[in-house]
């Protein structure tokens, strides 16, 4: 009897977990499918006739289309750049012995803890002087401050798991260090590189503060565009929630792909 009771508690508990984690997401998506009168109904309605009007509206809005494109360009470029710069560094940290190695590694990792507002102020002033405000480049570069640490962390770990016998053998055959990295470590490290790429992409795609401060009209990213509807007397909630869904859905799918690595990516390895 008590076994059965325990099972019931477990069952209800898990259902509550599902409800807790999914409710705001559910509310966003359903709200994006409500028409304006259902959205403003008080008390809110749970059953309604869904409409795709808001999606039609945002897909016809050049501002939103281009903001999604800007976000795509920026997140993809910064991710690629983080891997091009970070993977060799991770290889060095994983396989070479040199003085100050652990200090260097900590320095890479600790970059992620810095509040963006600390860098946003000087980078704004510098970008203004250099004429880089409102360009893709400034965001691609500044996003490296959190993407490089994640690539270095995950790839170092991945490269360490590759048997060093392969490297020894290649060296006996006279392969150069770069060739060893290129032909052995990069191909065998693909899983780690992919995971860190997905994380970099998610973090860059989601970022608001730098985008808000460093860009204006020419390069508006998707989160900034979603935020920009938040003015005026009656907020276009359907449009806001539809934009929100369009922004969140792709990254959620990506995140589900790396869900097993989520803890590692978010803690920089405090736990495994």
């Amino acid at each position, binding site marked *: 009897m008590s076994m059965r009771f325990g099972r019931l508690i*477990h069952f209800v*508990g*898990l*259902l509550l*977990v*599902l409800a*807790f*984690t999914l409710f*705001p997401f559910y*509310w966003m998506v359903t*709200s994006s499918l409500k028409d304006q009168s259902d959205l*403003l*109904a*008080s*008390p*809110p309605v749970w059953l309604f006739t869904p409409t795709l009007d808001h999606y039609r509206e945002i897909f016809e809005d050049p501002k939103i289309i281009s903001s999604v494109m800007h976000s795509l360009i920026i997140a993809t470029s910064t991710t690629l750049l983080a891997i091009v710069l970070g993977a*060799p560094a991770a*290889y060095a940290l994983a396989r*070479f012995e040199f003085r100050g190695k*652990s200090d*260097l590694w900590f320095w*890479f990792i600790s970059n992620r803890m810095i*509040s963006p*507002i*600390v860098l*946003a*102020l*000087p980078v704004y*002033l*510098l970008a203004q002087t250099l004429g880089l405000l409102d360009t893709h480049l400034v965001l691609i*570069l*500044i996003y490296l401050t959190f993407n*490089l640490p994640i690539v*270095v962390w995950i790839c170092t770990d991945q490269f360490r798991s590759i048997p*060093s016998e392969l490297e*020894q053998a290649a060296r006996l055959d006279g392969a150069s*260090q770069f060739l060893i*990295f290129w032909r052995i470590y990069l191909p065998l490290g693909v899983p780690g590189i992919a995971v860190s790429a997905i994380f970099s992409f998610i973090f860059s795609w*989601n970022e*608001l*503060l730098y985008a*808000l*401060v460093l860009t204006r009209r020419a390069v508006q990213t998707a*989160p900034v565009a*979603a*935020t920009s509807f*938040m003015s005026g007397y009656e907020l276009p909630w359907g449009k*806001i929630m539809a934009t*929100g869904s369009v922004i*969140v859905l792709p*990254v959620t799918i990506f*995140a*589900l792909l790396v*869900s097993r690595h989520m*803890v590692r990516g*978010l803690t920089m*390895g*405090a*736990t*495994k």
Partner: protein
Amino acid sequence: MSATSPTPSKPGRLNPGYGRWTPALFLAPAVLALLVIGIYPTIFALVTSFRRYNITRPRDGFPFIGIENYQKVLTDQTFWDTLGLTFRFFLTVMPVQILLGIVIALLLHKPGLGLLRSLARVSLVVPLATTYAVVGLIGRLVFNGNFGVANQMLGWFGLPPIDWLASSGGAFAAIAIMDIWQWTPFCALIFLAGLSMVPVEVEEAARLETSSKVALLRYVQLPYLLPGLTAVLILRSADVLKLFDMIFTMTRGGPGTATELISIYIQRVGFRVFDMGTASAQAILLLILTIMLSRLYIRVFYREIQ
């Protein structure tokens, strides 16, 4: 932990087989990039913090004024109030996230109900991946005073509606709830990882010894949760110092300054008042706080590598 597995001593150990400068070549691109985009702006902020630097008045120039900005910040009541509020926010969300996180981890760790359990586990990823700015937008809709679903839910339990976003206490509670929603799964995942470290034999033996769930938790599982708990406390405190996006889209720090945590405040001084000198001084102080935190983090977690 990923301590390097001790390299078996091979004949090549004395002569590692790579040139002295090879590591530097592989490291140089990443190090240079972080120097240019991380260190150089930090130095620039440090220099700015000793200047009068209001960008709406470029005619005044940007003269050096010594430590005046720091004196101003350290005697500024709003700055301390903001730090106090940030700390209070941390003290509000943290216990809830830890308790709920442990409960969820235990539910997910308990054997049985395989499919539902994996569904619940995977669903933890959803809040973590949701764009922080969009979390704020959802919060603004959910906690709307007229047509928000939060008040409807209060009504189901016979509770009176709350003027969430228009009152100080309500707005603070609303951002705390959204933060709890987003970050409890993170705590749960860390605790779940801790629970799975308990050796199966030990847990089985303990289950045979005692039928008390509390004893099992206290004497067998808790020791494995503690490292995760430290990680959660340090990482979440760094997160709260960074917290910007969600609050900015939900309340902009308002009403008044009721939800103005440190990053929101510095952003306002820098980019809405355009007093870059003062904002830089505040940012440098925040940076010092963060560096202290990350030193602590490194001390706690990476000791064994050093």
